[in-house]
Every structure is written in C-alpha cells, then in structure tokens.
C-alpha cells in the first residue's frame, strides 16, 4: 500500500487509481493492436487496412420458417389432451368438416399470421401444436406449421396429407 502524498486531497488516491487503470488499458490495447498488425503482416493474404470495395449485402431474405415434424394421421399426439390442434384451411372447408376440438387459424400464402392469432397459440399452454391443412402440394398445414415454428412456437408438427388423410377414405377424404 503506497502512502498518500503529504498534503494531497482526499480524492487523490481514487483519482490515481483511475489514471493507472486507464494507462494499463491503453498499454493492453496498444500491445493487442501491435500483435494483430504483426499477425496480419505475416498472413499469406493480409487484410487491407482500408476497405477498397463498397460494402455490399449479398445475403438472401428468408421466410420466417422453422423446423417442424411430419406426423401420420393416426398419430396419438393428435388425440392427446395436451395438444393444440389447428386447422389451417379456409372457413368453408372448416365448416364442412374439421377435427373435433380443432382451432381454425387460416393460412395465408402471402401475408403473415396475425399477431393476435399467434398470441392465442402461444397463450394456449399446449404441450404440442399439431397443424393440418388441405393436404395439397404445397400443403397449407405444413406451411402454417413452419411459420408458427419460425415465429417462436415450440414443438410444432403437421399432419402428413392434411385433412383428407385425417378424414380417411370417402367423400372429402383420402382416396
């Protein structure tokens, strides 16, 4: 512990401590920069000190799509009481037939799922989310599931073959 200078004001020690820290930081920065410059100089292809080309963005713009799992129409997860089942089809198709207990969140191919619908799904407290759609190519159920997953909903699945697969053989169902 260094003795305080005779007659120094009470803040002297604190000020000296701050000054020492700044000097030490400056020395570390200078040494690091020097080491980086030397490392760059011995590279086979040294990085330029000044950018010679205009910065350009070449990255693609992704859809908000996440990972989902395909399940079969007979999967027990669909009937599990802790699962939220979502019908991605339009109102007409939903009225004609839907899985008992299914909630309708119509999939829009070009506009995002409305925030309120997304909040409802998030607030459902379901352990898993299963989405089924029209079973087309591409399948609206799979696409909605991917969007829900991409926007933060966890444990999302889609029914392979969609509503026709769930209805089984017969009118409106799988062939």
């Amino acid at each position, binding site marked *: 512990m260094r003795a305080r200078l005779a007659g120094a004001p009470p803040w002297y020690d604190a000020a000296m401590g701050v000054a020492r820290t700044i000097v030490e930081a400056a020395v570390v920065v200078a040494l690091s920069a020097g080491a980086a410059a030397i490392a760059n100089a011995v590279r*086979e292809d040294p990085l330029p000190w000044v950018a010679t080309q205009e910065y350009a963005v070449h990255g693609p713009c992704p*859809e908000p799509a996440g990972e989902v799992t395909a399940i079969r129409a007979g999967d027990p997860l669909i009937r599990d009481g802790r699962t939220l089942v979502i019908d991605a089809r339009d109102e007409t198709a939903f009225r004609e037939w839907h899985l008992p207990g299914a909630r309708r969140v119509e999939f829009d191919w070009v506009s995002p799922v409305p925030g309120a619908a997304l909040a409802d799904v998030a607030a459902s407290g379901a352990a898993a989310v299963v989405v089924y759609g029209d079973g087309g190519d591409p399948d609206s159920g799979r696409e909605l599931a991917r969007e829900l997953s991409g926007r933060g909903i966890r444990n999302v699945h889609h029914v392979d073959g969609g509503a026709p697969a769930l209805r089984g053989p017969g009118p409106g169902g799988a062939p």
Partner: protein
Amino acid sequence: MKRASFLVVALLAAPAAAEVPECRALTGGAKSVADHLLTTEHPYDCCDGTIADCLKRSPACPLASRLAAFVCRRAASGQDRDTIHRAIERRAVSMMPGTKRHAFDLAAIPSAGSPAAKVKLVVFLCPRCPVCSKLGPDLYREVTTGRLAGKVTLHCRVFPVKSHPGSAEAGRAIAAAARIGKFWEFMLHAFREFDRYSPDALPGWAAAVGIERAAFDAAVADPATQAALVEAKKEGIRAGVEATPALFIDGRRWHGDMDVETLVDVLEEAGVAP
C-alpha cells in the same frame, strides 16, 4: 520452407494463369492465394487435372478459363482461400451436369430478353427484399441490353417474403400490373423507388408507368390477381424456395454468390454447355 513452397506453386500456376486477364493483374498476397487455388482446385467438368493443368492443355478446357477468372476476380477483391474454395464448391453443386432440374411453366411467367435464348433463368424476387431490388434490375439490364442479351431469357416470379412488411401489398400491385401487361415497367419502378415504399405510393407508381388509376384499382381488387400471386408463391415453395432472391438456371437451383459478375459468368457457361 513455406516461402519455397509458394514459389513452386507460383511457378506451376503462373504461365497458364497469365493467359487469363483477371489473373494477369494480380500481385502480392492476392496472387499467392490465386496461384494456390489454381494448382489445387479441379474443374467440375471437361478436364480431370487442376485448373492450372487444364489451362495448359490444347485445346484448353473453357471451364478452366472461367474458373481461373472466377478465382482471380475473388482473390483481387481480397477474399481468402477458404472463402474462394467454398464459392467454387457452391458453383460446382449448382452447375454440375446431373443436378436436379425443376420444371417451371415458363409460358405463365413474365419474361425479358430474347424468348429464343438457349438459357432460361427463373428468378423468385420479393418486392421488399433489398438484395432483390439490386439484383432484379441488374439481371434485367444484362439480358435485355447487356452481356446476356440474346443468350438468356429471364423469367421472374414474385415471391413475397412474409418477414418483409408491405411485401404482400407490393406483390399484389405487381401481379395487378402484370395482368395489365406492365409487369417489368412496374417491377423496375418499384425497385427504383424501393426506399420510398408505402402502400399509398402504389397507385402513383402505377401512374408513373402509364397505368390508369381505375384499371389499376380494378386489377388489384380482382380475386384473380391474388390467385395469380398465390400460385407464383406456391410454385416457389414447390421448388424449395425459402428465401429471396432464388435463381434457377435451366431449372437447376443456383446455390452460389448472388453478385451480377458471377451470375453473368455462370449464365454464359450454361449457354455454351453442350
């Protein structure tokens, strides 16, 4: 030792690479990066040796010259070995004979450039994607008046990306303009005005390209316009598009860099392929 190995690499690569204008101008670190790659990387078609070996053969493998220019252009721009190596790999994955081809109904897609051109390029663009706003007009210029004129037909599909606010409205406006026969005029104008976008600006943009307000409003409101937009997006999803811009060269997905120099190069390559 390391210096000596560079010297050997340079001596092996230099004579052949000197025939390629992009390589002739290289010096220092960029030259050593290019020389190393030219003596270690192999063309994915037409010749079995390294790029440098293939350049020396007579007649020279045209792909070797293209790849040498590709490597040297990148080295000159400051890219390192690994970055260029990955770019070559992505190019190979996209261009190798036998890569899966997607079938598009080209007659249904708005096109630019000569309809008789050998190479068909299908692009999926989002009207609110910043990269698309640069690449779309660049490709249009190349196929209509630039280096790809007469060689490539550009087919453009609108693919509104949901993470871009306004993409659905702008996409519908472009689909409406397409139904009126003003697809490219409107699309290019929308990209020029990219930073001034608002839904309220769309009728003004239509007027700027010669579309009457009543006709534009009617086309936007027509359910068939929305159906056309949805069909374009579904077609992209079927082909595996998950981001824009997405390009298909003669039906093969392009996985490489999206800068116009690279694309002109690979499209010319596709044009001379047997």
